[in-house]
């Protein structure tokens, strides 16, 4: 039986960050990555840019080709890990091989989740939009005479639309929610972004869903029907928690971990879209299925696997996403008092409560947005900064001279 000091199940962003975290503490211990996808880590959100022609397979690689070799990482790609035995400290692969670990990271990510849909088996060209393989398959199916139906007006569905808009005849997008991007935008913001998407050819069917598929026809709950050639489902995702659950570990919506990335099982860590985080904006534990969070969780878990003392603090939901040049940045929770600024092209909403910035929405106002995120992440009391000035323009002049000295006149 092969034995590794560090075994990582999953080969995506959290795994890469964990490798870097491990190597920040331990330059020698051997590392094995077991990845179900048959390729090295790539920027998963880049799949829409691939369809758009703004990147290519080589540039999508998340790290240089030499990364794994330089870090002494062995790869077992294209094989699924089936079982963890926490007592014997082994991982069993789908091909029957057993691997011993000293420290294990579960970074299994999430998978698309489609609710049962009547007649779905009658749809000939059906795709999802999570992986490179999904994008390559969809890429082959696209052609200028085809009509596409995307189910789901969330981040994944709409980025898919951006990727394919100019490559097909038409795109219809349906969602049960009454507005697009319901998880990150309010009504005003959603209306603005929807207009941009409509200008690029999207037809929306909101507060509506498919009640039945009949081959290339979708019968909607509203009574409308839609003819299409290609169906993309982007309805929701579920964390891949089964390995930990079956091994007897604590699982809520995601795998339960502490701020060091430890699961309830000894020497087993979890990071990325499969694991929970403590969201400082809402004060609750939740799955923050976002790439930067996966990276930060992976880094912390890796460092702790190798004996370090890292903690993930200040986790919170934030997104920066563009559609046809319209940039949307959001963070935190939308509660408390609202400060709003709106023009034809831009929108700003700042949500404040208890002397804190709790959340924000910025459309086409990217410049220096990180200053708002800093206020939010670090729980900076608004009475300690010139918030009146910050409302209109994020700037360091609104902070104290001492804060500026610490940040601009010292190493940071």
């Amino acid at each position, binding site marked *: 039986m092969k034995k590794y000091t560090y075994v990582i199940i999953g080969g995506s962003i959290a795994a890469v960050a964990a490798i870097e975290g491990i190597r920040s503490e331990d330059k020698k211990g051997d590392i094995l990555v077991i990845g179900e996808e048959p390729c090295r880590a790539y920027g998963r959100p880049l799949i829409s840019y691939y369809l758009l022609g703004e990147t290519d397979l080589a*540039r999508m690689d998340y790290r240089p080709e030499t990364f794994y070799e330089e870090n002494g990482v062995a790869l077992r790609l294209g094989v699924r890990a089936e079982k963890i035995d926490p007592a014997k400290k082994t991982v069993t692969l789908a091909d029957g091989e057993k691997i011993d670990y000293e420290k294990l990271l579960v970074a299994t990510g999430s998978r698309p989740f489609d609710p049962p849909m009547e007649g779905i088996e009658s749809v000939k060209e059906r795709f999802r939009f999570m992986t490179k393989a999904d994008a390559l398959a969809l890429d082959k199916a696209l052609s200028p005479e085809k009509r596409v139906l995307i189910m789901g007006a969330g981040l994944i569905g709409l980025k898919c639309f951006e990727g394919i808009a100019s490559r097909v005849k038409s795109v219809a997008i349906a969602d049960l929610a009454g507005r697009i991007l319901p998880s990150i935008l309010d009504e005003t913001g959603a209306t603005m972004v929807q207009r941009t998407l409509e200008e690029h050819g999207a037809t929306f069917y909101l507060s509506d869903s498919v009640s039945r598929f009949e081959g290339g026809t979708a019968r909607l709950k509203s009574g409308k029907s839609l003819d299409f050639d290609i169906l993309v489902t982007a309805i929701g995702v579920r964390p891949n928690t089964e390995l930990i659950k079956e091994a007897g570990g604590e699982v809520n919506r995601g795998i339960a971990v502490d701020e060091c990335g430890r699961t309830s099982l000894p020497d087993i860590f979890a990071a990325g879209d499969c694991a929970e985080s403590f969201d400082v904006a809402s004060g609750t534990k939740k799955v923050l299925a976002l790439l930067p969070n996966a990276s930060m969780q992976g880094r912390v878990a890796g460092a702790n696997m190798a004996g370090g003392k890292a903690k993930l603090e200040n986790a919170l939901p934030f997104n920066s996403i563009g559609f046809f*040049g319209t940039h949307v940045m959001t963070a935190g929770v939308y509660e408390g008092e609202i400060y709003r600024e709106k023009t034809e092209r831009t929108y700003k909403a700042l949500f404040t409560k208890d002397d804190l910035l709790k959340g924000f929405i910025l459309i086409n106002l990217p410049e220096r947005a990180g200053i708002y995120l800093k206020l939010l992440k670090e729980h900076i009391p608004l009475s300690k900064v010139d918030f009146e*000035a910050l409302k209109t323009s994020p700037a360091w002049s609104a902070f104290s001279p001492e804060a500026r*000295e610490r940040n601009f006149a*010292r190493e940071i």
Partner: protein
Amino acid sequence: MKRIYVNEKWCLGCHLCEYQCAYANSGIADMVRALKGKAIHPRVRVEDAGDVHFAVNCRHCTDPVCVQSCISGALTKGKDGIVRIDRQKCVGCFTCVLVCPYGAVLPSPEGHAAMKCQLCTDNTMGEPNCVKHCPNGAIVYEVREAAQ
């Protein structure tokens, strides 16, 4: 490593560093041709607030949140400590712009990528051109220690 530090009390708010930055990164040898009649998009930005003036550019953080947050692997911190952006890999999602607490990673004017200070290692200047031309020593390029 040597980084750019701000001596805030010496800053006149003249914005010369911004012009020197735009020139350094223009790829044009003649400064007048590089800047005259053009909107500049410098990677260093001067803040003016009443009597307070200071220049902001990338801090080249020891633990850079922009690198950790990059969705494409375009941002890296080199062995020399410099945080660089590979504009060929960047898809312009601006996650780095959203996470930089200094507001020092900026959208490129053409919109398809982010841009940031790389301490003039990505042009022909050899050393930070903003520092070299600051008339009052308000920005310096040297080794300092973190605040206690």
